[in-house]
């Protein structure tokens, strides 16, 4: 295993261009799982980001919250403004794992790990976050909802580094994050939903329901149109237009659909007059 240790973003980009297969490492909470047994991965080249102090900040501008590649869940949990303005980030961070993971796991790592169950991606997408990628060729900004192309496939090219995540600062009329796992702590989502409402505009995002975390435009349209819903089951046909859950080690497709319908129905009933 060889490790490259840049101290600036431009040096990191240069190294990635020279070693296109190098894998960036932030907190290691995904990359080092069962490490001693993963002998093949020991031969890879890693790009350690921990020495790049410019990537350590959490910054508020007038328009955005800017998370850096090394910003951890804990950094957000303990930021009072995050709790006030973007509470779904804090909710998700508190459920992604316990403090040991919160202290090391990063939002950027959650994005590039590209799990369909990613709690961080779920709430970032509900807030219309975008991903900033840097390379020797320059900067590219991609809306998170366009970032994934299929199961664990994303629009990051090997020579690009996710450096920042930009989250717009807006005031919301309603926000919801729900995660259902096998237990309350230390569980990966069987189903996750994040919903925001702002000036009549809905965002509904689902995790563990499709090959990637994804927006649910059919559900969003139903909410915008004010279509009457008198039972969670009424939502099922619409949900099925948006997502395609599977049976796997964590749950079943049927369970996931039904739970998503219930999470939305009971979670939105108080703000949707058309939900009986």
């Amino acid at each position: 295993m060889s490790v490259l240790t840049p101290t600036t973003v431009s040096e990191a980009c240069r190294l990635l261009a020279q070693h296109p297969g190098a894998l960036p490492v932030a907190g290691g909470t995904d990359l080092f799982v069962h490490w001693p047994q993963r002998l093949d991965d020991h031969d890879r080249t890693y790009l350690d980001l921990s020495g790049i102090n410019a990537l350590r900040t959490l910054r508020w501008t007038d328009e955005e919250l800017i998370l850096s590649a090394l910003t951890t869940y804990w950094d957000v949990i303990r930021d009072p403004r995050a709790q006030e303005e973007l509470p779904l980030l804090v909710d998700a961070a508190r459920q992604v794992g316990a403090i040991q993971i919160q202290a090391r796991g990063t939002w950027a790592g959650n994005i590039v790990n590209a799990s369909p169950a990613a709690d961080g991606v779920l709430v970032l997408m509900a807030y219309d976050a975008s991903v900033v990628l840097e390379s020797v060729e320059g900067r590219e900004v991609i809306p998170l909802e366009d970032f994934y192309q299929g199961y664990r496939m994303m629009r990051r090219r090997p020579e690009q580094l996710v450096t920042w995540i930009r989250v717009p600062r807006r005031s919301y009329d309603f926000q919801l994050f729900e995660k259902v796992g096998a237990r309350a702590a230390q569980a990966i989502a069987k189903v996750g939903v994040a919903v925001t409402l702002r000036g009549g505009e809905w965002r509904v995002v689902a995790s563990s329901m499709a090959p990637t975390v994804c927006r649910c435009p059919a559900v969003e349209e139903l909410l915008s149109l004010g279509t009457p819903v008198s039972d969670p089951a009424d939502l099922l046909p619409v949900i099925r237009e948006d997502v395609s859950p599977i049976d796997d080690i964590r749950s079943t497709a049927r369970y996931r659909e039904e739970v998503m319908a219930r999470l939305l129905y009971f979670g939105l009933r108080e703000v949707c007059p058309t939900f009986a």
Partner: protein
Amino acid sequence: MRVSFALNGQRVSLEIASGDRLLDVLRCGLALTGTKEGCGEGECGSCTVLLDGLPVNSCLVPAYQVRGCRVETVESVNPEELEALHASGATQCGACTPGVVLTALWVRRNPQLLHSHNLRELMAGNLCRCTGYDGIIDGLEVWLSSDGSVDSGQDSPKDSGIDGGQEISEGPETPTGPEAAEGQGDLGGPGVAQGKGGPGSQDGPEGKGGHKAREVSQEDAGGVQGRTGEATS
């Protein structure tokens, strides 16, 4: 490669392999076997150590990343400190105990965490397979409230171990280098939480809207799990 860091208040410097985990370096390189390996995947918390004051799973920390950092292991804790855990029956096989103690030490140094979190949530990353959690939580509650939870240490010389640790953690907050923070403040030492005010608005993990939905879905989860016999995690 060579790595230097502060271990339990003392500077250490040693040769490591680039693929070593912090856990391997502690146990094999430094013969500090108090830190246990459980699951090796960051779930069970038995390998918990404090890194720059925050609990981390040392099985997931690449050892080269701790250069310049502060690492604290269970060896830094005076066992007499932990009488309350014995008294409450908090340990049986003992595999989880070092990790439990380190996470609790973090809480003890940052009592303001208990304004925004309950103790069970803070301890959720330390799994126990023997005693169940009530004894652990009971013992920790006694420990956390002893001596005033701010580590005043006026009580007895026993406290010196922990106070020593706190001294270190109150030093300049330098995650990996002097200018690391860039105005971001500490990365986990004392004063971690927004203390007064801020998170008081959050009464628990589910402060907001979807409370009802959660209850419904969890009931539901129980039913379906029972039916399919699905494995956890």
